[in-house]
Each structure stands twice: as C-alpha cells, then as structure tokens.
C-alpha cells in the first residue's frame, strides 16, 4: 500500500499507524531477548579478544629460564661487568654489527658472527635465553641473530631488571665451540634480495624508523610503525593496541612484512613483536635504509600510513 508520508519533516510527530498492527508482535519479546543475549556474547568475546596475550609469544619470549638453558647477556661490557646473571655469557649486540661510512650499522659478515658464537661456546642445539636492558633492542638483535643461525633463542621477559639481586661479576669459564651454524636466509635478507622481493610483490615493506625519517623518504608503498609501537617499558604493547595498529597498516597473519630501519636493533624488535603476535613470515633487511637506497630501491615521500603513526602516539603507551 502506498500512502502519503505522514511525519518525516513535519512539525509534530504523529502516532504510528495501527491498521496493520501487528501480525508478528508475539515475536517481539523473543527477538529482544535474543538480541540482548547476542549482544552480551559479542561483548564478552570482544573483551577476551582485546585483552588476550600475544598468541605466539612463547616463540620469542620466556618468563623463566628453562633448566639447562644458556643465558646470554646482550648489554654493553660495562653493564655486564657490573653484574650479570650467574653463568651468563656475554655477547654484546653491537659487536654483531659493522659500521661502514655513512650507511650505518649493518649485520657483520657471517664468518664474524659465527666466530662470535664460537667464542661464547654456543652450539646450534643449545637452548638460549637472552636478556638486555629495558629497551629490548640489544636482546632482540642477539635473539634474531641466534635464531637466524638455527639456535633456539628467546628473550627473557623484563630483561636484566628481572634478575633482581641475583647477580654476579664473575666471568664464566667457557670452552669455545667449533660447531657449524646454518644461516636462515629467508629471515634475514640483504638489501639486494629485498629489492627482488619488493619487485615480485612478495613482501609488504614495513618502515620502523621514526616518523620524521619516514616523512623524509621511504621505500615506495612502505607502511610505517615507529619503534615505540613494538616495545615499551620493557614489554610488548597491549594486544589490542598492537592489533589496531596492524589493522591500520593492513598487516595480517598472512602478510610477509619486510622490515627495515636505520638501526638493525629496531628492526629486530619489530621482528620480535610481529612474531609474538603470530605473523610467521617476517623478513628483516640486514642493512639500514640507506643501503636500500644505494641498491636502487624506489624511494618516495608519499605517506602510506599516517594513521598508524597517529594511533601509536595516542594509544600505545597512554
């Protein structure tokens, strides 16, 4: 039936029509109860989803040192000498980097890395727990390098501060190893290989430098998440905040992020958080952004993810 519209826009609301009242009214209460129950269920599931921990966190973080595990201190020499976990071996993260000209720190050649692992007596079958300072940067880099070389390494939650008073200044006696380590070339990629992956659209470039560095120039189509998005106050961000930032950056579990930075330690921290979140195919560029530029990467200043940066400022550590 078509009749003239009675009330929209008119000055006084009219009573609802009652002529066809109501064939289905007996369903009304049932529908209201169903809707209320569904709403309650959705809210409960949402609260759970928002506040759950990182699903894959056990792959990169531990709360307790397992029996028989090798402890590795990734902090600087001075901090190590002042006091470290009893028996902890020292592998300073920055000694795994080389600095060449203006490019900045990039991963040392494989033989130098292996030599460093030999010096502290590591074997590929060792279970290693790495700790650093609250920034997480050094521990993340050492853990990344160890995992790249096939060692089962994870970061100690809370870092050195979780050691409490249980510290020692004695340097443990270590028998150097001569084990061979196989490098995982998929996890840590060179600048040249990165360009091939980008050209094949096989990866999603993820810039983890600061906002200002990103604005000055970044790899074309790269989304940006600042280092603070991945780690703060000695811990991973809240699941909900991280999830929101990943959604804004359109990164999902199926994405293959190609992480680059000016500081390999920041890229390692991003790898750690992304892996803990459950993104299993993360690639880290083993050299800084400048090396990508030098290798001929297409660089632009057009922002692809301003929203991500804004979210990280407003949500992450508020």
């Amino acid at each position: 039936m078509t009749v003239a519209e009675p009330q929209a826009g008119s000055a006084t609301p009219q009573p609802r029509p009652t002529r066809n009242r109501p064939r289905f009214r007996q369903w009304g209460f049932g529908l209201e109860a169903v809707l209320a129950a569904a709403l309650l269920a959705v809210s409960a599931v949402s609260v759970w989803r928002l506040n759950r921990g990182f699903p894959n966190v056990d792959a990169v973080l531990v709360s307790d040192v397992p029996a028989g595990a090798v402890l590795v201190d990734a902090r600087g020499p001075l901090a190590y000498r002042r006091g470290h976990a009893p028996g902890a071996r020292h592998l300073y993260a920055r000694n795994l980097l080389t600095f060449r000209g203006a490019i900045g720190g990039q991963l040392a050649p494989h033989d130098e890395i292996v030599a460093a692992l030999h010096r502290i007596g590591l074997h590929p079958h060792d279970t290693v727990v790495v700790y650093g300072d609250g920034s997480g940067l050094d521990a993340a880099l050492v853990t990344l390098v160890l995992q790249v070389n096939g060692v089962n390494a994870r970061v100690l939650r809370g870092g050195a501060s979780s050691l409490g008073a249980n510290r020692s200044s004695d340097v443990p006696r270590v028998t150097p190893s001569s084990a061979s380590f196989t490098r995982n070339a998929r996890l840590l990629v060179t600048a040249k290989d990165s360009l091939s992956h980008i050209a094949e659209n096989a990866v999603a470039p993820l810039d983890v430098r600061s906002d200002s560095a990103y604005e000055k120039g970044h790899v074309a189509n790269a989304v940006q998440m600042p280092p603070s998005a991945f780690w703060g106050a000695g811990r991973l961000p809240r699941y909900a905040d991280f999830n929101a930032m990943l959604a804004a950056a359109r990164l999902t579990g199926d994405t293959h992020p190609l992480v680059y930075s000016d500081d390999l330690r920041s890229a390692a921290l991003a790898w750690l958080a992304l892996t803990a979140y459950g993104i299993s195919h993360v690639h880290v560029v083993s050299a800084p952004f400048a090396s990508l530029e030098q290798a001929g990467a297409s660089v632009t200043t057009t922002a692809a993810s301003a929203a991500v940066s804004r979210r990280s400022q407003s949500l992450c550590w508020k």
Partner: protein
Amino acid sequence: MTTFTLISGLIVGLAFGYALQRGRFCTNTGFRDILLSGDSTLFRAWALAVLVQLVGVTLLHAMGALPITVPPLWLGANVVGGLAFGVGMVLAGGCSSGTCYRVGEGLAGSLLALIAFGLGVVVTDHGILLPLERGLRAATVSDTRIGATLPEFLHLPTWVLVPPLALVTGAWLWRSGVTRYRSGGWPWQVSGTALGLVGVAGWLSSAATGRDFGLSMTGPLRTWFASLLGTPSALDWGSLLIAGLLAGSFLSALIHGELRWRVPKGQRLLQSLVGGSLMGVGAQVAGGCTIGHSLTGLSVLSLGSIVTTAFILFGAWGAGYFMFIRPMRRAMHGAPS
C-alpha cells in the same frame, strides 16, 4: 574480513536498528520537539544513552580493557560541517539515526535522504568537494597544544570530570517521569539505556576487530557508497553495522506492525534530497554525524564532538526557525483572535 567482524558488526547493527526504531530515536525530532512543544522525551533518551556510554567506556578504558580513539578537533571543519549537517537534517526530516530507522519502516523520503547522504559523503571525501574538506580540516588543532578531549583541555584527570558530569545528568534524568514518546515505542528510559548499552558493545566489538571506535555512520556509509561507485573499499565492522542497522529497524517495524511503504509528495522528496546531501557533506567535513559525534564522540568527551554537536543543534535551530517557528508565529499573529 573475519567471521567475528562479520557476526559482531551485524549483531550490534541489528540491536542498534531495533533500539532506534523502538525508541523513535532521532536527534532532529528530539530537538524540534523541545523547540516547538517543550517536549524533552527524546532529548532525555539521547542524554541517557550518552551517559550510559560515558560511564561504560570510561570504566572499561580505565580498567585497561578497551582502547579508544578520540575524534580530532578540526575547529573550522567541526563548525562548518556541524552547521551544514544541522540544516540538512531539518530539511531531510531526520538525523542520521532517524533517517536509518525510518528507512527500515518503509519511508521513501528517508531512503532518498540516506542515498543523498551517502553520495554527499563520497563527493566530499574524494570528489569535487574534497578541497573544501581539506581546507577546513587544514587548521587541525593538535592534541599537544589543546586537548582532544574535555579532560585534557581542562587539564583534569578523567575520573575527576566524569563522576560529577554523570551525577548531574543522572539527577536531572532521575527527576523526570517515565514517559513514552507520543508516537509510541519504548519509554525514554528503556531506549536510552538500550542505546547506551549497544554503544558500549559497539566500542568493544569494534575495537576487537582493530577499529577502535564506537557506533558511527559516516565512515561506514562512505565505504558502501565508494564501493558501489567503483572505488572498492574493504568492508569492515562498520559496514556490517550499517547493514544490521537497516535490517534491525526493518525487523522491529515488521514485528510491531509499523512497516508501511510511504511515498512523500514531490516537494518533500526534493527536500529530502537536498537535506540528505547537506547532511553527507557536513558529516564528511566534520568527521562524523549525530551518531559518530553526538552519540559516540561525546561518550569520550571529545572536544571535536562537543563542538560539532553544538553547531549541529545551532544549524538545526536556524533551519527550524525559518521552516517552523517563523511560519507558526506568522500564522498566530495573522489568525483572528
């Protein structure tokens, strides 16, 4: 899109549409009732809905259970967009919520207004009116210079501001009697509480899909219309919310015998078209409408939402004056005593 996004968006939308239709919830009608007859029934429902959300969202956020995003303060855009939306909703005969639930009831004029709303949003977002939006939004007031929320602006902790606000509003509402709206439906207490609870559920389930905002209509409508006009956008929680909203109000109208296809006369159609377009342009410029700003944004005490809502009401008052009040006064003065 995950199953959870699909299901949660639809469920919240269904409940939202149902509650809107049962509560006859329309900011335009509520404000017009106050202006013309001093009836604040719908206004009280709106105040209660905001209050319930304000308390719920503040508590959940304080407990660390809910991340929130506060709409930014674009002063120029909030003022101009709010005014345009206010005028538009009077012309169209309903705000965004009112328009939606009336579409579910079968009002052709509201359907036309909704289509014009969506087109207005798209034209402003990436069409010929984009420079207007950019120009007005260029003067964004950064949240470092001035707070994006009222507590930040006043340099007060949220917990100092929210309880007194809740108490004052609650006391005013408590003193009001239980009244049903003239055209039937739920009493204002029921509709206000229901809409507030749906709003809180909206915040939660939207955040759980990574969206971090509550109920809104402008963004989701933009997604739908952009997709329909050939610029595919990923459908998200908000898109399903709109689908559920229309379905919910339709179901409610069907069940309660209030579903009728009604076609307005030509002038009303034209009014709906112009009003809907103005609403779309205004909402896109201001970054939200009476749902995104006046219902959801106010629940986080966003300054942008406060400014936009104030200017929506101001625009509605101006348009209402010329459309209803002045003609009424003229008729009264001209009428024989």
